[in-house]
């Protein structure tokens, strides 16, 4: 509900007495209303952002709500805050509230059409918001894309670690497989390149083949996942964690030893196909399919395997198939995320897919919340943002982020939004 607007809730802390009242009056706004509010805000920023920034002595339109400025130049904090208030908080709140009447009516109307249509309408709006917002700065765009890739990755690991309850450490490995497989595909076909020679197809055709490249990446990762899935029939828990860890090391070491794909030097020159619409579509599809799956009875079998395997077996659940599906499915999306990553960063090295990345994705998934699609989104977005914001602190960043995580774990041991169904109907529905 109110989770949709972090800006207002953080920036209006001062008026604590107000807050409940504002909160109540905003509670009637449906998702549609919020989206429209945010769209207005980003359009306002697009139009007058630069002028306003100059007036507020800001060097530029603050890229991430001024958060990246605050630590570098604390003096600019009031200006940044004012900017955020004027450009985001106020317009969003006002537009959302004022349009609540008709957006609610629209939401009611949308409740009557097939759900996918309603979802498409909302997604379209959300995309519009992102599109306008990222127009302002390429840095913003890149951060947004990398966050969306992180969301995919976190979701995919939640399938295994959260829904099925195995402590899998192999995700960097899956991602590496996806990144490399899709890169090989695109470089082979569309790029004149040191490793594979001339392009086989004209590059202009490329973007149409990008989905295929991603699927190939995902498939490679899914195939790799068999190495972990098959032992999981007979063992689990810690032992499986080690198997998956070994898998990660094996993938890294194997890539290092394959000269044709660059060995430790890595592989570069991928075309820049991870555009905003592509990544956005990828993420939306990923969320949609994963959410579909985990909410189906077949997907709930993952939970049963996690909570008690013997009982699952005795209740006709094919546990082997379930594990196989979970690993391959999770790995598939990690591979797709890897494909996006490779075509965004445009250079992959085996060294990137190691323990450091593992620590990061684990942090995201456990911070956000186990067994929850929303949790993964929250985890990926917040950890990525915090990590971006605190960069100016350099070393101390790595003391503060762990501290935050420890506190979250102590007070919410299963993560921020754990064990909650992502109920699209309820989220998109009208509010009364």
């Amino acid at each position, binding site marked *: 509900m109110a989770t949709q607007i972090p800006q207002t809730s953080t920036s209006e802390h001062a008026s604590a007495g107000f807050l409940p009242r504002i909160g109540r009056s905003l509670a009637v706004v449906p998702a549609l209303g919020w989206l429209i509010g945010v769209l207005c805000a980003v359009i306002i920023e697009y139009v007058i952002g630069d002028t306003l920034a100059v007036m507020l002595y800001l060097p530029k339109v603050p890229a991430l709500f001024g958060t990246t400025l605050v630590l570098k130049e604390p003096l600019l904090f009031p200006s940044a805050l004012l900017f955020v208030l004027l450009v985001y908080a106020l317009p969003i709140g006002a537009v959302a509230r004022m349009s609540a009447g008709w957006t609610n009516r629209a939401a009611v109307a949308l409740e009557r059409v097939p759900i996918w249509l309603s979802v498409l309408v909302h997604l379209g709006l959300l995309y519009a918001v992102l599109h306008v917002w990222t127009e302002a700065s390429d840095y913003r765009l*890149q951060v947004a894309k990398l966050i969306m890739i992180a969301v995919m990755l976190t979701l995919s690991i939640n399938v295994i670690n959260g829904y099925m309850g195995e402590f899998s450490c192999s995700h960097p490995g899956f991602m590496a497989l996806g990144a490399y497989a899709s890169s090989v595909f695109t470089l082979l076909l569309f790029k004149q390149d040191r490793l594979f020679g001339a392009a086989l197809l004209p590059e202009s055709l490329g973007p149409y083949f990008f989905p295929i490249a991603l699927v190939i990446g995902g498939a490679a990762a899914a195939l790799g996942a068999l190495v972990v899935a098959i032992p999981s029939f007979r063992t689990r828990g810690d032992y499986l964690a080690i198997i998956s860890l070994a898998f990660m090391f094996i993938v890294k070491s194997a890539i290092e030893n394959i000269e044709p794909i660059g060995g430790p030097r890595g592989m570069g020159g991928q075309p820049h196909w991870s555009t905003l619409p592509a990544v956005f579509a990828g993420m939306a599809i990923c969320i949609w399919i994963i959410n579909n799956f985990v909410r189906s009875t077949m997907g709930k079998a993952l939970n049963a395997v996690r909570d008690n395997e013997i009982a699952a077996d005795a209740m006709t659940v094919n546990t082997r198939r379930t594990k196989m599906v979970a690993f391959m499915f999770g790995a598939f999306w990690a591979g797709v995320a890897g494909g996006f990553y490779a075509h965004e*960063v445009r250079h992959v*090295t085996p060294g990137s897919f190691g323990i450091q990345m593992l620590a990061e994705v684990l942090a995201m998934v456990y911070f956000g919340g186990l067994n929850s699609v929303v949790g993964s989104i929250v985890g990926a977005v917040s950890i990525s943002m915090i990590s971006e914001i605190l960069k100016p602190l350099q070393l101390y960043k790595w003391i503060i982020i762990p501290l935050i995580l420890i506190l979250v774990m102590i007070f919410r041991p299963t993560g921020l939004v754990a064990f909650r169904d992502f109920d699209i109907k309820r989220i998109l529905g009208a509010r009364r």
Partner: protein
Amino acid sequence: GKKRETIIKIGINAPITGDIPKVGEGSKYAAQMWLEDIEKAGGLQVGDKKYPVALVIEDNESKAESAVKANTKMITEDGVMVIIGPQSSKQAVPAGGVANDYQTPMISPWSTNPDTTKDRPFVFRACFLDPFQGPVAAKFVKEEFGYTKAAVLYDVASDYPKGLAEFFKMAWEEINGPDSVVAYESFTTKDTDFSSQLTKIKDSGAEFLFTPQYYNEVALIVKQAHELGFNNPIIGSDSWGSAETVSLCGEDCYGLFFSSHYAAAGAQGATKEFIDRYQQKHGYVPDDVAALTWDAIRLAQQAIENTGGLSGDIKKDRVAVRDQLAKIKDFAGITGNMTFTEEGDPIKCAVIVRISDQGEYEFYKQVCP
């Protein structure tokens, strides 16, 4: 509104955190020393105007993805004119792509991977490449000792040692015929035990060992080799060129040779000045990263000055700076004289350094391409 003043911003893309913080620190300190100089002079004189200068230091966390983000941010948000860094090829290659796309000159002080600068007119580097340094070491050993059987020990998972090891092997086999590298052994980053590889090396009858590793590994490799009874010479590369090599390795390393950009002990002129200043300020002799960063940033300064005046339009100025960079001839860096090739790689001489019996880096020999 009000007109914004033109500030020349230099971006530093360095691994302040992550697994090689020392490298980040060296880059940061060198850049800050340079900034002091400029500020003392009241700014950077370009044409007939003095411009204030600012450093934008971004941490790339020793990660490719963060290096890319840092470059994008510095270019699109901060509006830097030149980027110095990233240091490791793992980050420099992808980050170079970004710089090139945005037509922003970038100089990586330390990256040896050919891909960093290849087909990227806007990307330069300040160090020499493996295809040059490998043969230098091979030739030196042949001329100096006349050996015929070589052993190599390197980190497979790391770009620099692996590349150098390969070129060394190629050069050595060219001189001494096939199979003259009798042991070609490897390990993985962060390994500390090399006993198995060293046992193999010793068993192979190699007359010397070439190991293009970083200083922390050098200490371990040399000590373990001695413990295993391998007492033949051990030869290194420019990555040995940190004061820490000797402080960590101690007497075990005395008398060994390595190829490098400069020799700290015998340094003269600007080089010595830099070393002394750095040491005074930070308490240790700067390593090659710091020296190369210093040269890179001075190269950038030179190019900016050579433009003869800034237009105020950052996009145009960047192109102008890049053109001037490409034109630089015989730049007198503290790590040697440099001229850029077509690809943006410097042509420079190497020196052979001997670690003296006092543990100092003595100039031994110069080798030019």
